């Protein structure tokens, strides 16, 4: 039996090698996607454009403005006629209005209001802007000795672990591995399965004494080999480009990646046996695979924020567990302690997908 599976696997690899375009896409697409994620996605709010209307034009108001832009979080843009102009045009995300009596009132020890209009459409940025303008104002008050500093009787001594420099690539890149290695291996194996159906070569399989189990296992093995090549390429390039380093011994990552690829390829065969043509198969893997691994895995947005019925789906998404493994390997570094269960769940989901695929296929097979 094992010889037949191996032969099937070799046949599949030979077929894959012959299709030059698919080989090229199989390696270029993951690499391209990896680079886009690694370079372009930044969640941290920076360079937020802000317009200031200074009706006071005093040394004090200028100091205040200088304070605002001293942190490099904001960049100044020109304001229009009214404070909302720059917001309406989308040039600025916030508009600060300093009243004409700003310095006069401060010198007279009276309260003064600085008005801040914030474009609330991007919620995250809006909150960041609000907090940092408030913090800047407090800092301005303190540094200009406008008020005795409040006596602080409790102090929080905060320590950041694992990623003290808060480098965002350290967070994004391990997550991108999970998306890329879920979408592309599954797409390739889905095409491989459905192509035989479309071209009718599957009839030969039916008439041979090959079981659906052997047929599919041969395919899965072949594409796990291809996927392992993709994984090596993607991780190698990412490690070089984004200066990633192993934080722990790489064995959990190796084991985890192997079962994840197995699971990913099985997902592809599952979609493949369910669809009748290549289009449906590719769309199925692209849409279902992409949405689940991108959105419901905690790659960019925290799983804790996903509302109830959707959050249940998160638990059966292998990408979610693989992200734990990659982040542990490259950032956290606890080794098996923190993630021992992740490869087991991934393997279980993969086996389930594979067995369901063989079930579906064997139903289609001719009975003797």
């Amino acid at each position, binding site marked *: 039996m094992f010889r037949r599976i191996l032969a099937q696997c070799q046949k599949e690899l030979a077929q894959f090698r012959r299709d030059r375009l698919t080989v090229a896409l199989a390696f270029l697409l993951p690499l391209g996607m990896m680079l*886009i994620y690694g370079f372009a996605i930044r969640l941290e709010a920076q360079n937020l454009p802000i317009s200031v209307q200074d009706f006071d034009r005093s040394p004090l108001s200028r100091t205040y403005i200088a304070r605002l832009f001293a942190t490099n979080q904001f960049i100044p843009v020109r304001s229009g006629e009214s404070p909302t102009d720059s917001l309406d045009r989308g040039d600025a995300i916030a508009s600060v209005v300093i009243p004409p009596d700003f310095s006069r009132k401060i010198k007279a020890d009276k309260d003064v209001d600085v008005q801040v209009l914030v474009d609330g459409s991007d*919620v995250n940025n809006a909150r960041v802007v609000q907090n940092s303008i408030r913090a800047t104002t407090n800092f301005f008050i303190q540094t200009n000795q406008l008020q005795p500093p*409040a006596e602080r009787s409790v102090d929080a001594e905060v320590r*950041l672990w694992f990623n003290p420099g808060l480098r965002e690539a350290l967070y994004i890149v391990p997550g991108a591995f999970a998306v890329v290695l879920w979408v592309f291996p599954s797409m390739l194996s889905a095409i491989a399965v459905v192509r035989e159906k479309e071209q009718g070569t599957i009839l030969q399989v039916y008439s041979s004494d090959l079981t659906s189990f052997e047929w599919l296992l041969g395919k899965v093995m072949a594409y796990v080999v291809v996927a392992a090549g993709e994984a090596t390429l993607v991780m190698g390039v990412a490690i070089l480009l984004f200066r990633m380093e192993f934080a722990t011994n790489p064995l959990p990552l190796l084991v985890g990646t192997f079962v994840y690829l197995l699971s990913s390829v099985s997902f592809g065969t599952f979609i493949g046996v369910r669809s009748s043509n*290549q289009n449906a198969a590719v769309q199925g893997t692209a849409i279902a695979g992409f949405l689940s691994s991108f959105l419901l895995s905690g790659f960019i947005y925290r799983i*804790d924020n996903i509302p109830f019925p959707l959050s249940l789906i998160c638990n059966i998404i292998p990408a979610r567990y693989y992200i734990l493994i990659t982040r542990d390997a490259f950032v956290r570094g606890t080794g098996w302690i923190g993630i021992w269960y992740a490869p087991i769940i991934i393997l279980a989901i993969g086996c389930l997908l594979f067995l369901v695929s063989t079930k579906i296929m064997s139903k289609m097979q001719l009975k003797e």
Partner: protein
Amino acid sequence: MNWIRRFLESRFWALAVKEVQQILKNKQFIFLLLFPPTIQLLILGFALDPSVTHLSLGVLDYSRTEESRELVSALTENDIFWVKTAPHRKENLVEDVRTGTITTGLVIPPEFRQDIADGKTAKVQVFIDGVNANTAGIASGYMQQIVREYSRNLNVPPPDPLVNTQVRFLYNPGLMSTWFFVPGVMGLVLTLTGSLVSSITLIREKDVGTLEQLLMTPAAAWEILAAKIAPLFVLLMGDVFLAAGIGLVVFHLPFRGNFAWFLLFSGLYVVVAIGLGMLLATLSKTQQQVVLTSFFFNVPIIQLSGAVAPIESMPLFFRVVSFADPLRHYVAIARNLILKGTGIEPILPNAAALAFFAIVLLGVSINRFRAQLS
């Protein structure tokens, strides 16, 4: 009435009717037009939430006094933190942060109450899991802010700050993250569905060879292509209504701008998406190739558009590249018309960019098609 009859008897009309019949007969096509957009809008709309709330907190309270409990309740008051574990030993707390069970750990020392009573500075220790750089930064900010606030309230009369910052949120006063994401997702859905549907209809005829048959008919090349595009346009406008309907009913988007403008620019963007799909179809020979290449184009188009990740935070190079992304302009227009409702003037540059992309994409792909056909 003569021109209507002439139009109904024209080759264009006959071809367009044939095209519509073909599309309606194809169940997969109808499914493609209805199912993925709905699911994408619902899942993306509900799942994308960048706000930082419900951070899991582990509390190790050695002090066990009224003051320490007050500090903990100050932290959990606004749903920013919630207590997940309350270990008895420091090693357990450290282990919880290490393994990722909790994102933040708080240690309140035994002398906490005494220090406050003595007027000394009481120190609490906070550990934060920095794996998620963005969340960690925000968590650390919240933590310090809440502790500062708590500390200030201990000094009986908190002094009024001399300079107040009065913050008002425009356009989205409730700070609903769905209001931000859903207009972006609408554009994303139109891009995916539009380019895919149009590339598939064209490539299928090329694949099966029926395009050659069409060429034998007395219709001109432009008539054939126009008859292909027009029904697709009408069907995809159906997707625009579907998306707007979901936005209104499920996500309660305000639609502050002029709805007619929204339809017009959405129509323009549908043309861009169809042009993109046609271009992909001329670049590929088989269906498999076209879906793979569309994936190759769609991922950067979506990532650089600002629909899911903010453009302001991207490195300068990508901020510049994003201007060449038609989806960026559509998302800007949709957000403006849905959330801001400022009138047409601020979005004119974006509209001009869309028109430019529509003309270039359609022009190039029609030319390439003609070259391939003859």
